[in-house]
């Protein structure tokens, strides 16, 4: 084989934290041959995106490449001038960002943005670039390839944008593309199409790629080799199949084991449900969002509400909490109807039902310390003051496995993502509720952290007999924690029942689609699925 396309040796990158520079990439080596796809895997903070950008000779603001060498096709990117590096970018090395919706400039049409690089770099004139774009859009299986380029980014769906961005990256036929978590922000069903398109186009042009993700199952479909990173250091690197079948390091093994947690199956519930949603129809103004939704949640049980974005999961939660009074139908609590608007509910009714939000960052007032964040519900609902209050706060911190002495006077900004989500749990617990609504609370977290949170919730449920309503789009999470499942689509409940029943065929077609779209840790899963679907459709 010829010389490798990209050779990175002992790469060190520092990031500024206040006045100090901290090393965030600590001596990583990387070699990539032409036409090869390398998967970079790690939790957030592992430095995978930073390495990806560094292979373009680029460091984000607040970061600097402090050591090592980056050789791209014989050019030392660290020694090259900014002018030279700029010349390479876009033309010979391209980049596909995590969120295409945010990375396309909202002010210009897709095709304008496609043509920009080839025209500015002098690769081809605009006319040619435009017809080339249509061709690539077609190959990426975008609908209406002739017209879609004339749309603005906001007029195109996320999955299509991600494909359009891949097409844009291909515009100059680069030798190397960096894919930085291109499907993380997408629904599972959309993810399939994008993965399919990316895999095909990379193969067609023989482009080398670095594929960055935290999702093992995804990388298994895409990469020839996988490199695992932890806190800026390499854990191990191997061929994909080798890595999946026989990981060497403990850390790798623990990653593989994340998906093993599953709640024990419980028998069907009896008695009066804690919350009973009865024939609820609701909407915003004239837009109907929920149509005749009914389900029950019993004490000590978890009901997972599953569906894609826009299916009405969160709206259901808003109806239960009283933020959105329903047009028709009602919500019963312990068999008694709740006032539709939260403003009309008594303080005790408010206390009984607590909520944990998806984004802990926006759910915790950034200006308040944990003492007040957690203590406030206890103070309000239970009338605790002074010493008693402090003790209660400390107990709650113990409960969520944070050392009280260390954390009680911190601000949310001084916590990690998982810790913030634990504070959200503690705040809900402080009210001593009967029901906790968890709205996508793990979707922003890494898998290992996710598992910790799920185990915590499970433990609390068995200790306190709490009822959970668990909103999620991640079926793995459903498998892990749910007792019962409610599947929603376009504001309607299309299927509901016990978890075990739900995961057994036969399914409603939509449930089937959802279930089959969840990637498996099998390198052949995608190919097989596509074959099956082709055969079926």
């Amino acid at each position, binding site marked *: 084989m010829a010389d490798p396309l990209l050779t990175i040796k002992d790469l060190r990158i520092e990031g500024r934290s206040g006045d100090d520079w901290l090393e965030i990439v600590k001596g990583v080596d990387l070699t990539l041959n032409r036409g090869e796809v390398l998967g970079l895997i790690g939790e957030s903070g592992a430095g995978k995106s930073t390495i990806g950008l560094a292979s373009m000779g680029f460091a984000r603001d607040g970061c600097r490449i402090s050591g090592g060498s980056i050789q791209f096709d014989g050019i030392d990117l660290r020694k090259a001038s900014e002018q030279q590096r700029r010349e390479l970018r876009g033309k010979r090395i391209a*980049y596909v*960002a995590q969120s295409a919706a945010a990375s396309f400039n909202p002010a210009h049409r897709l095709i304008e943005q496609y043509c920009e690089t080839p025209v*500015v770099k002098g690769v081809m004139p605009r006319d040619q670039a435009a017809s080339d774009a249509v061709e690539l859009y077609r190959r990426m299986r975008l609908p209406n390839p002739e017209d879609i380029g004339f749309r603005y980014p906001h007029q195109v769906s996320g999955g299509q944008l991600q494909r359009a961005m891949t097409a844009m990256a291909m515009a100059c036929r680069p030798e190397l593309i960096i894919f930085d978590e291109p499907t993380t922000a997408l629904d599972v069903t959309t993810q399939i199409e994008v993965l399919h398109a990316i895999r095909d186009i990379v193969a067609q042009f023989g482009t080398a790629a670095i594929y960055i993700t935290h999702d093992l199952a995804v990388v298994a479909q895409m990469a020839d080799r996988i490199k695992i990173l932890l806190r800026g250091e390499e854990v191990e690197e191997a061929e994909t199949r080798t890595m999946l079948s026989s990981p060497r390091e403990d850390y790798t093994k623990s990653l593989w084991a994340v998906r093993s947690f599953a709640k024990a199956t419980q028998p069907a519930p009896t008695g009066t449900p804690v919350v009973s949603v009865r024939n609820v129809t609701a909407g915003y103004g004239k837009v109907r969002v929920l149509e005749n939704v009914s389900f029950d949640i019993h004490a000590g049980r978890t009901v997972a509400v599953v569906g894609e974005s826009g299916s009405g999961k969160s709206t259901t939660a808003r109806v239960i909490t009283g933020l959105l009074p329903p047009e028709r139908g009602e919500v019963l609590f312990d068999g008694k109807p709740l006032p539709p608007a939260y403003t009309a509910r008594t303080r005790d009714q408010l206390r009984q039902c607590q909520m944990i939000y998806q984004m802990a960052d926006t759910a915790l007032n950034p200006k308040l310390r944990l003492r007040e964040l957690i203590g406030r519900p206890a103070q309000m609902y239970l009338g605790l003051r002074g010493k008693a209050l402090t003790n209660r706060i400390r107990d709650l911190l113990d409960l969520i496995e944070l050392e009280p002495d260390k954390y009680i006077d911190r601000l949310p900004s001084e916590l990690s993502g998982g810790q913030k989500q634990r504070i959200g749990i503690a705040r809900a617990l402080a009210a001593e509720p009967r029901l906790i609504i968890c709205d996508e609370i793990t979707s922003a977290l890494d898998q290992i952290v996710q598992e910790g949170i799920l185990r915590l919730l499970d433990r609390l449920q068995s200790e306190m007999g709490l009822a959970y309503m668990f909103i999620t789009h991640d079926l793995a999470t459903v498998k892990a924690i749910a007792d019962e499942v409610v599947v929603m689509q376009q504001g309607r409940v299309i299927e509901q029942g016990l978890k075990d029943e739900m995961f057994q065929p036969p399914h409603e077609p939509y449930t089937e689609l959802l279930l089959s779209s969840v990637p498996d840790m099998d390198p052949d899963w995608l190919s097989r699925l596509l074959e099956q679907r082709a055969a079926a459709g």
Partner: protein
Amino acid sequence: MGHVWKMVGQRLALGVLTLFIVSVVIFGATELLPGDLARELLGQSATPETLAALRAQLGLDQPAPVRYWNWLSAFLQGDFGVSMANRRPISDLISARLGNTIFLALYAAALAVPISLTLGILAALWRNSIFDRAANVGALSAISFPEFFVAYILVLWLAQTGLFPSMVRINPTTEFGDKLYMAFLPALTLTLVVTAHMMRMTRAAIINLLASPYIEMARLKGLSPMRIILRHAVPNALAPIINVVALNLAYLITGVVVVEVVFVYPGLGQLMVDAVSNRDIAVVQAVALIFAAAYVLLNLLADVLSTLSNPRLLHRR
């Protein structure tokens, strides 16, 4: 485009409401002013008989709501009325001055907008450079002096040396070139006053966007910094820039009394102040409504332009 027209329609309706509130507020305020027009016209020589006669002649003897209603109904029929003080049609009084005011505002804007946008864009491009800091400090200093003081300094430097006239004598027949020459000092004064605000806003609006993923994308596409700013940042920063320009344009139309006084410029601000001190309520109302209308329309224009500049709002899905 349909929803843009709908927005324009809604905003115009709101604007009419705003104007109505303004007219009530101004009328109420003028009612509270001590003394009335008759008193002002007769001054010290007022006797009860002459006052009563003049009040009857001017219609000031009617109760306030009746006068407001009379004024409003005439106004709605397009009749601004006549100045109570000198019996001239208010439309005549205002039209020439409105032209002057708009001329000065546009003149100052024509100087200030290109300067401040250029400076703002360059400051964003070379952020934290000496240029950026000097432009910032210079702009801050310019807005830190009282307007009349800036005006006097300019007169000292540029008028007493004979370069430009210290007072503006223009009328409808003045040649355009002469107008530009005569009104240079007031326009320059106003330019100094408004440039800082627009420049800083332009810079801030652009810099705000520099952390966006699409700017990083542009950098990763290997584009030059200038192209990134002009092609990728500016189009998205247009809404706040347009808004600050509109705000300053509104200021240039409505807030320049002091400059008008210093340069003896026959604009609407001076007319309004005169009318207030003479209790010429019809004129006060008319000018206040013109000011309010200018404010409303400029804000509306800014919103429409922002919408047009933003594909998300212009082209709905």
